[in-house]
């Protein structure tokens, strides 16, 4: 783990953290914790292996710990009953603000997979090893996350199982 290599990963770590948690300060705190934990476990780092995947993995574990500590619900809200489309009565515009809002409404683990695919362009195998889950789980989270995001954004045509709240 050398400084230049870490410096090179910093922007991507920050981007992923920001996309995961939304708030800038909270995201940077998460990156800070990640680097601190990385240094404290530097002995476990195998030189020549993928530094990015290692750091993303650390960040993921920290985030899981964090959510557990805060007592936040880390279970996916996969029963669609609890979800209403963001703008059920509005027009058909997919906007950046909508996307940010819809993203925030995805269950944490679906968001993580979606972002690693979209932002990091990791392969499914890399995501599986980064998150410590089987590839099959990566695929089901990806599939659910994408579909949920699509429905949230297309609030004008909520799928039959999505209740329109007035």
């Amino acid at each position: 783990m050398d400084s230049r290599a870490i410096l090179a990963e910093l922007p991507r770590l920050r981007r992923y953290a920001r996309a995961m948690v939304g708030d800038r300060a909270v995201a940077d705190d998460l990156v800070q914790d990640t680097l601190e934990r990385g240094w404290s476990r530097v002995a476990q780092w195998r030189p020549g292996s993928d530094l990015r995947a290692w750091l993303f993995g650390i960040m993921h574990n920290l985030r899981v710990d964090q959510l557990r500590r805060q007592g936040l619900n880390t279970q996916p809200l996969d029963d669609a009953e609890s979800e209403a489309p963001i703008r059920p009565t509005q027009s058909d515009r997919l906007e950046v603000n909508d996307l940010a809002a819809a993203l925030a409404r995805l269950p944490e683990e679906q968001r993580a997979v979606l972002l690693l695919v979209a932002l990091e362009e990791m392969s499914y195998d890399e995501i599986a090893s980064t998150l410590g889950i089987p590839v099959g789980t990566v695929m089901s989270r990806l599939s659910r996350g994408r579909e949920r995001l699509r429905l949230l954004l297309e609030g004008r045509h909520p799928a039959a199982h999505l209740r329109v709240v007035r």
Partner: protein
Amino acid sequence: MSQHPITEADLHAYVDAELSDSRRAEVAAFLAAQPEEVRRLQAYQLQKEVLRRLFKPVLDESLPAKLLDLTEPPIAATMEATAGPRVDAKKRPFLARWSVQRMAAGFAIALLGGAAGWLGHGQYQATERIAQPLPRQAAVAHVVYSPDIKRPVEVTAEQEDQLVKWLSKRLGTPVSPPKLGALGYELIGGRLLPGNSGPVAQFMYQDSSGQRLTLYLSTENSGKRDTGFRFAREGAVNVFYWVDGKFGYALSAGIDKGELARVATAVYDQLEPK
């Protein structure tokens, strides 16, 4: 078609280019008869694209000092780490390298700030209702609507009179789409969009090859100075934009800068009669 049925996972792998060539061909053959699925996959593709755009500005932000500090091992870790096969910390020109790194970072930021200040900081602050710069708004609107096969516009060019009347009314000022037929771009139609503080308009054009171009027209620029042509690149989208009085114009397309400049000049000439 293969004896292996096409699965949901195959469809995602198709979107993410994770399939072997042969499997990809099988999925493509399957999709040829599944327009609904194609639309769904297009929506996923668009999600990826817009997510990337949404968070791209974070990559260009200046790095907080507390994170830069942690590119070097903190004191406690140094002791632990020196046990391992790391470089001898004493041999590094520690402070010297530090200041160079910081200076480089600062310098890069200064450059970015100058050349691409519109990229802004923290796209995610959109949630805090921070105004989006014109070329970014335009590029996002372009990338969202121009790939749409079925509904690229709200009002089509066949109803141009209504389009002009409607948008003029909503924007509170007469607007009309410039004619770009001489350059090979025909009007498809237009739509109303939310800007930073009110309505903005988007006109869409297409050439014979299906290449689309959008003109984004905002009337929110009160108080800003006029500008000449400015150029911005947002991923694969090139944008020429300029401000004239309260009007902000941005022309976006996935075509090269030279051709886009030609179109931008034509637009400018029509909108600003000499």
